[in-house]
């Protein structure tokens, strides 16, 4: 049986391959602080994954060029090892293991989306690797007692809470009739929970409650119902694809609804892609460039937006801004800890209290940022068809007045 020889040699080849690839470079090499990140470069979250990566890269370049991170009297530069998680939680968990146990990474940046963060958090927690994440907003991430997870963003259930409350207010304090459709994923379902809470508190009624598939290309069934039942508010959330699909089909089917509230409008570049069709859409956002927060690295939102535009050729969505902010938080924590000890850095992170161009950052014991409210912007177009996102709520930041109700398609 010579076949055995083939198999034996094959097995030994695998063994040799494995042993030869055991390379481990520690997190701090020379003057570099190596951070690990699994990012969705392919798959359904790829566009947001790239926004995230651009945000990280932008901040790394900026911090490095402005003197880097000073720890123990020495200056260090940031470097990030990226892997592609393919928008798949299974892959993300695997990559987190790989970054930590094979690449020797001791500090992590978050992936894109709540689902993937949910898959990675148990791994980083197990190894005691501090992770600052900028794109996992699911509320359940912050109730698990994770000690090494820090999120610079507000939790998902707050995303569209403001929209419902505004609608109720405009309705003279009476409850409204809500139609909602959410993608079947951790983030969107969490936004849904937020709406359910808001509806309960304001005495609003949910008349349509649909689930949308993950590969979201069609929601006509929901829109037909919306046409029939005429709700006061239509809420849609399903990442970038959800926003694009909703606008495309609402315009095609000429669905009239007084208020349309969504997420991910800026990531989807709605105002650019759909122009006037996206007009009046109300969008939840973690950040907007017109907000007046400041820091030393990016100055303020407008400067950040201009620099980002110069570097990557498009207006930064909030996903990029919050990702950049994650690096600022890390830098701040390293310098305050004045050490690369994971526990000390973790404690420094927990004590973070700072302002960045993206907003104030202060972590609750659960790890979520409690010092930064969500904003709501509305897509507004001028006569020439040039559309822009303008902040309409909360009033403190508003740069335009909310247009309500949305004019009927026949009058547009």
């Amino acid at each position: 049986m010579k076949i055995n020889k083939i198999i034996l040699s094959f097995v030994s080849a695998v063994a040799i391959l494995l042993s030869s690839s055991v390379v481990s470079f520690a997190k701090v090499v020379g003057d570099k602080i190596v951070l690990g990140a699994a990012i969705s470069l392919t798959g359904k979250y790829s566009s947001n994954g790239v926004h995230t990566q651009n945000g990280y890269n932008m901040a790394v370049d900026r911090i490095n060029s402005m003197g880097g991170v000073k720890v123990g009297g020495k200056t260090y530069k940031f470097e990030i090892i990226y892997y592609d998680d393919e928008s798949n939680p299974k892959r993300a968990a695997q990559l987190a293991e790989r970054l930590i146990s094979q690449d020797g990474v001791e500090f992590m940046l978050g992936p894109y989306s709540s689902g993937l963060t949910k898959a990675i958090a148990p791994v980083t927690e197990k190894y005691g690797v501090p992770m600052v994440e900028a794109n996992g907003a699911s509320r359940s991430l912050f109730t698990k007692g994770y000690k090494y997870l820090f999120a610079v963003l507000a939790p998902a259930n707050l995303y569209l809470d403001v929209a419902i409350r505004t609608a109720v207010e405009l309705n003279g304090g009476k409850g409204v009739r809500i139609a909602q459709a959410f993608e079947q994923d951790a983030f969107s379902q969490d936004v849904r929970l937020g709406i359910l809470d808001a509806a309960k508190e304001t005495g609003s009624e949910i008349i349509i409650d649909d689930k949308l598939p993950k590969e979201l290309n069609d929601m006509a069934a929901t829109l037909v119902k919306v046409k029939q039942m005429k709700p006061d508010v239509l809420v849609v959330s399903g990442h970038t694809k959800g926003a694009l699909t909703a606008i495309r089909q609402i315009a095609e089917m000429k669905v009239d609804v007084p208020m349309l509230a969504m997420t991910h409008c800026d990531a989807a570049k709605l105002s650019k892609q759909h122009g006037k069709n996206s007009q009046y859409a109300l969008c939840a956002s973690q950040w907007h460039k017109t907000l007046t927060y400041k820091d030393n690295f990016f100055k303020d939102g407008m400067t950040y937006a201009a620099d980002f535009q110069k570097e990557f050729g498009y207006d930064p969505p909030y996903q990029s801004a919050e990702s950049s902010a994650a690096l600022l938080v890390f830098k701040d924590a390293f310098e305050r800890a004045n050490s690369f000890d994971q526990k000390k850095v973790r404690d420094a992170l927990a004590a973070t209290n700072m302002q960045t161009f993206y907003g104030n950052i202060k972590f609750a014991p659960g790890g979520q940022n409690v010092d930064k409210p969500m904003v709501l912007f509305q897509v507004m177009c001028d006569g020439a068809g040039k559309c822009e996102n303008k902040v309409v709520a909360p009033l403190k930041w508003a740069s335009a007045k909310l247009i309500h109700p949305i004019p009927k398609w026949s009058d547009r």
Partner: protein
Amino acid sequence: MNKNLILYASILVFGLAAPFIFPAFKVQLSILCVLIILAVTWNIQGGEMGYNSFGNILFYGLGMYLCASVQVGMFFPLAEWTESGGEKTFVHTPTQFFQGMAAGLVVAAVVPTIVAGLIGYSILGLRGHYFAICTLGLGVAAGEISGGIEIIGAGQGFTTPPFPNVGGLEARGEFFYFCSFFALVLAFITVRAIYSTRFKLILNAIRDNEDKAEAMGIETMKYKIIGWMVSAFFCGLAGGIMGGLVGYIDSTDVAFDGREMGVFMVLMAILGGKGTLWGPVIGATVFHIFKEGFWTLFLGWQYVALGVLIVVIVIYFPEGIMGWLREKYPERFGEVVDEADRKAQVELK
């Protein structure tokens, strides 16, 4: 036989020692074991029986959800565990965790087997493309349906119980590695055992000509169902282990992951050489190594690289690695080659 023993013993020793020799690769090795299980069991349908099943992912996903549900449900209310994306936190004691996992794995293996038996009776009546399409639908449907069932987390996903705080940092990896390795050993022994009986010949007869096999008095349906049940048993087991290993179950991306796992199991078996015992094992290993390599070397382009690899394989190794070796070195596979006959064939061309 003697040489066989040496081979198996050395592989077993390698398998047992691997997590200690390559501690950083435990997760990848565990996944490799799972991939091999999937490829080897897929080969029962796709390779030996000629039924290209895309539905084995159904059993894998079912096993995953069942194992996690049992592990949680034995000690805590499952509905509260998964409510609002798992907002409430319950902690398993080490005993609870391992008891739950053991019971979960049993259920994860047994229930899919029963399901395979039940649906097999109708689905295995289809042949060729119809069977392939029908099974493809099974996986997709299961993913969509499970994404709507609240008690297992629906779209929010299901966080499996975290590994208890025993045995230090490496314990979790070692535990899941040995789970998957033993499942693999069990699967391999079972498959090898049934391949050495008449059962394999019957499967081959079904592949070669099902009508003739029936005409010869073989109850093909019975054997087809049994074959599928064997696959389901191990797919379910593999799914249960994988769920615990990943720690987070998502309906379409982790459990009923037809786009990845469902296709990979077919690909691996074909790559290694379907219709052979070792082919799927080798195929899965090569595939896993290439895939991991591509992920590092061609960031963002790994699927393109993988696609090129597949094209190369289809063109140059249509029979898979084992098939190619067999053609090249037939004598090593115990085939008697008559040189004169071979020459005659060459000349005929």
